[in-house]
């Protein structure tokens, strides 16, 4: 267990400024205050859903159809609205070219 830093909740790490998501370094439950550590700040974010260890949490409200940025680059497109603090994974995020090939004919 980490030291009690005043929030005593789960943490999330974001190594690239401007990313839309952070990676959970603990598992977090819905409603928990998650300490988000970025390259320049440290703040609390209320988890909107359960988020497992190593999975991504949204740092802002993301609309369906928006590109989601991690490592400073788009990693996919939101397939549903994702509120800040929610788990981001295959249920609400798809790869950028995930459907492009099926439309092509050979």
């Amino acid at each position, binding site marked *: 267990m*980490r030291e009690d830093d005043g929030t005593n909740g789960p943490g999330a*790490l974001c*190594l690239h400024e401007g990313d839309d998501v952070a*990676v*959970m*370094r603990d598992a977090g439950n819905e409603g928990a205050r998650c300490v988000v*550590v970025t390259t320049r700040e440290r703040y609390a974010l209320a988890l909107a859903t359960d988020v*497992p*260890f*190593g*999975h*991504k949490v949204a740092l802002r409200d993301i609309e369906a159809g928006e590109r989601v940025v*991690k*490592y400073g*680059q*788009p*990693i*996919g497109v939101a397939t549903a609205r994702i509120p800040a603090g929610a788990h*981001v*994974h*295959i249920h609400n*995020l*798809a*790869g*950028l*070219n*995930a459907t492009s*090939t*099926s439309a*092509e004919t*050979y």
Partner: protein
Amino acid sequence: MAATFLGYARDTGRAGVRNKVLLLPIDRYSNQVAWTIDQTVAGLSRFTCPGDMGRHARDRDRLFRIMLGLIRNPNVASVLMLTVRADFNYPETRAQRLLDAAADCGKPIELVTIDGEGGVGRATLAGERIARQLARAASAQPRVEAPLGDLSVGIKCGVSDGTSGISGNPALGSAMDRLVAAQGTVIFSETTEIIGAEHLLAARASDEETGRRVLAMAGRVEAAARAVGEDIRSINPIPSNIKAGITTLEEKSLGAIAKGGTTALRGALDHGVAPDAPGLYFMDGWMAANSLPVALAAAGAQIIVLQSGGGDMPFDPPVPVINPALISPTMFMSGNPQLAAKMPVGLDFDASDVLSGTRSLAEIGDALLDAFVATASGRLTWGETQKYVEVQELWFDGPFF
């Protein structure tokens, strides 16, 4: 941070970190002879040849390049080559071509032919005698100081998870930046795993041709998947990646390219081909963990590192690939504290302090480079403490006939 390691000096080129006698059957019939010799003679590293039959000339040439690369690797002190007879194979993989191409290494390469000895039994006995002489001679060579820049590290990813891209891979990248700064060589691969990030990698190329080659390699993988009716994104990320938090191939790839560090990309190598100068390289290759390490060794890497997320691994797992490079030790590392806790034995380097924030990337990079130096100077990897050698499956383009 050490500037040297204790290695085995070679007549030409870089020093080795091990002093292996390579038992090299170059056709399938000779595999049995090699196996029998390996049962009775201590201290050999035995290759298993997939054979050249049913393969087109380009794949036969790839087999040649991998066998040649293993001979030339600085970790190899000497070679016992086995074949049915001098002209048994297609011209691409014949013994004489290997002997000619390796002549400038100056290392002892002995050839035993089954026909020349009068059959399998006699060839086995002759091979045993020679192998024992080579093993004894190799054991007499002392380690001497060698510059850090002699090191070439081959990188393999494994069981990527949400921690890989923000913890283990950047930690490894930090160490690799230091190795390149010391005139060392770094080779990473897995063409499938750059898709979605290939444009970023190409932009880091030190020349236009390298950038073009990176894009072409990624394009070939996408096209090959389409040719069998699949989107590469439905093959990769693999199920255990997804369970551990990786959602898209772009995400996996962006995290994956962090493991090579941040230096300029000096070249895009064909599979199993050694670079001719120090620096960071990408090598075209398959993602399979029982295939890539031996090709990285053929490309000259004296140490392989397997950077694993490991989020989906069971408790107290075995090292997921055991001695898969035959002649080059494999270091197993992770930046996932849960894996480190699950693995009381077997983890060569724990980089999870990056995730917890208790050590900086620079500090971890220094510590990791020191771990490479310790391995280079003779400390066994956890994999090397086990005799098991994973069965190799070399990567060929096909089609097969």
